[in-house]
């Protein structure tokens, strides 16, 4: 009896937060869902979906472009970031301040960084366009890739590598067959941490291409803050984004059982 009472009293502490989550996280998403099915006069309609998927407003094109740019950004980040994280883990694992230097830019407001890069591009007479946007994306998201990779690589048990070497594997094989598979959770988590923001950002592409390159985040922003009466299509886009996020996270959960990686940030 006593035990029940104490459990009850502690549990009660969770209720306010549960209500809070319900009210300010779940309900807003439900409103977005409802909005996706409403027309201007608040009547039920599939027109918003039709407009988005028929590409009348260029929504699908934008999504396609964003996915490609996000993918390429992620790949470049991975290609640059993996060796970085690997070398850091191999040679500087104990040197915390040095590792921190790679993460530090993350804590400086991204608008400041992006505007600085734009100013430099302008001074160098670099034409703003796809190239500059990609640079800005990679520049912004590289730390997000390095951080989880580094965490996994550092935590790899050294005995695995030794075992592989003992069994006669050369360096390349050790890397391909042992280190790479073991660092997979970090890779996957790094990819989601880069990919999702990269497809939904709106300020980076706006600043670094003078709004010429229009990404999915820009499109959502446009529907909600620059026009009236187009919340419907904007809501459909938000839902698409939400689905992408959920899919990405299901993949992460399938590939990584390692809870630690996810809680590094």
């Amino acid at each position: 009896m006593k035990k029940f009472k104490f459990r009850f009293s502690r549990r009660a502490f969770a209720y306010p937060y549960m209500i809070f989550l319900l009210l300010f996280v779940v309900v807003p998403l439900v409103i977005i869902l409802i909005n996706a099915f409403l027309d201007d006069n608040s009547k039920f309609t599939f027109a918003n979906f039709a407009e988005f998927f028929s590409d009348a407003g260029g929504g699908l094109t934008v999504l396609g472009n964003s996915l490609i740019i996000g993918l390429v950004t992620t790949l470049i980040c991975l290609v640059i970031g993996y060796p970085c994280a690997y070398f850091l883990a191999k040679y500087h694992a104990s040197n915390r301040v040095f590792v921190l230097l790679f993460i530090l830019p993350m804590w400086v407001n991204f608008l400041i960084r992006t505007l600085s890069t734009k100013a430099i591009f302008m001074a160098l007479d670099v034409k703003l366009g796809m190239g500059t946007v990609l640079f800005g994306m990679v520049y912004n998201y590289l730390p997000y890739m390095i951080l989880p990779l580094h965490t996994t690589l550092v935590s790899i048990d050294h005995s695995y590598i030794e075992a592989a070497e003992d069994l006669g594997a050369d360096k390349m094989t050790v890397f391909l067959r042992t280190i790479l598979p073991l660092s997979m959770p970090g890779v996957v988590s790094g990819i989601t941490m880069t990919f999702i923001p990269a497809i939904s950002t709106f300020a980076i592409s706006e600043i670094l291409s003078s709004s010429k390159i229009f990404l999915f985040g820009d499109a959502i922003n446009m529907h909600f803050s620059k026009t009236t009466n187009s919340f419907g299509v904007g809501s459909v886009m938000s839902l698409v984004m939400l689905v992408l996020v959920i899919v990405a996270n299901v993949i992460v959960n399938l590939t990584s059982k390692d809870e630690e990686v996810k809680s590094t940030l």
Partner: protein
Amino acid sequence: MKKIVSALAILLLVCLVLTTLASCKTEETDSLVIYNWADYIFDDKLTDFKEYYRDITGKNIDITYVTFDTNETMLTRLTKGDSNVDVVCPSEYAIQKLIELDMLVPMHYFDEQAYTEDFSSNVRLAPDGDEVYYIHNSGNVEQGIIDKVSDAFGSIEITAEGSNQHKKVSMVDYFVPYMYGTLGILYNKYAFKELGIYDEEILNRANWGILFNDDGQGGLLSEGLTGSILMKDSIRDSYAATVFYLLESGKLDGLKNDDGVAYADMSVGDLINAVDDQLLALVKDALTEQKTHLFGYEVDFGKDDLLTGNAMVDLAWSGDAMYAVEESWNDSLGDEGDYELSYYVPHSTGNIWFDGWVVPKTRNPAHTDAIKLFINYLNRPDVAAANLLEIGYSASVKSDVIKSDEAARAVLAEGYAVYAPELWDAADEDGNPLSQEDCDFADWEEFELYFFHNSYLDEDGNLVSYDEISNSNWRYPFESAATNADNYRNIDSLGVMRDFGTKNKAVVTAWNYSRSAGVNALPLLGWTALAVAVAVGAVYLVIYIKRVVRQNVKIPQKNKPDDSGSEQ
């Protein structure tokens, strides 16, 4: 003892009466909530209004000033019931929408009796020895605005459900004009000179095609213009500019709308309001095509991009353009310095817009005095002059009224450093009197020519326009239409744009489409795939070679464990 008590009681009573009286006096404070565009009033005039209000009603007033940055934000806030404002300053099409939604109170500003009817007894309407009394300023308002608005909107039908449904009303009864301006092209004169297109004939042939890098005859205006054009990140303005361009480039020739009227035969006003699917498809294509020539889309007015040479042309509103042009004065240009930027409203067609004060039904009825006094106050010549000086657009007060009002002239003379000691004390910040050379304008006449006519007298006494290309007095289009019709553009060529109404959604969709078009990331994907394939191939090749080499040499890998041991 008794005496003392009664004395105290009396004292107390007196105190009480006094404090009540005092509190009565302080309670006489009215309030007013103003909802206006950001940076759309001279702040000092709000303070001055408080004084004016006290003079005229004997009461103090508290002003709450809230701003919005687009008509859409304002509409959302008003229609969602998210507001408690007393006066709002939307653009003409937003006013139309608010009227249709039956959200506004009719003001009847141009009928003095109706306007002043519901003033409380505090407002001094007639001069009975008071220095300050109410003067109705509706006569100061430019008649051209009223004509244009009546022409463009006719009678508006209230569509919202309620007692007023289907009632037809006139917009003039609902709004009081505040500022107006045109839509045009802001460009870098000197960059154009370098490209060899700073030429009256070339530009007048290209007209709105300048924004599309089209010379008006199907060719490119200039190779150098590609990648240097800025477009306004605004649906309605881009739509208007594109329709004008379509008309001028002959792309509308032979096309008719659903009623069988040829687009080319429509008046400018009818054309920009004729939003149908055919026209929209053409606009969409033109905007998509335009993207290859663009530097980008801007949200402010691209002044910096134009001055740093990143861009050469921009679609701009007259007030922003005026500010940009005045800021672009460069001493090293020309013989005695020159404005680097210039503003051009193509002669054939153009858009004119109006912002005005309206009163939403959700206002606080107790604020009626303040609302009406404030709106009328803004049409006083000196107040209008101060505001137009601060924000750069054309005030709705007739230029003749401003020119003939002593106080208004003083405001302008001081603002533009005109050597006119009869108007202001012509002194610098430290109080030292300025000489004629210190001032930017030698006398009021020179300034008047510059400011109201955009021109000056040359040595032979001929009137010369500052802007030899466009010759357009864009600061006072109505003035020039009336006085100098030959030299300046025709006011009839400027159309007023109504709300898109049911077509709004289709326009937004078309705009979104053209914004998203022109970016093709597929080649990027191809290159990346290729790079990945090459990289993976290289890794496999290395592994393969290593294996082959190892098999051929057949050296047993024995020393490996030692290596890793030393690393520990």
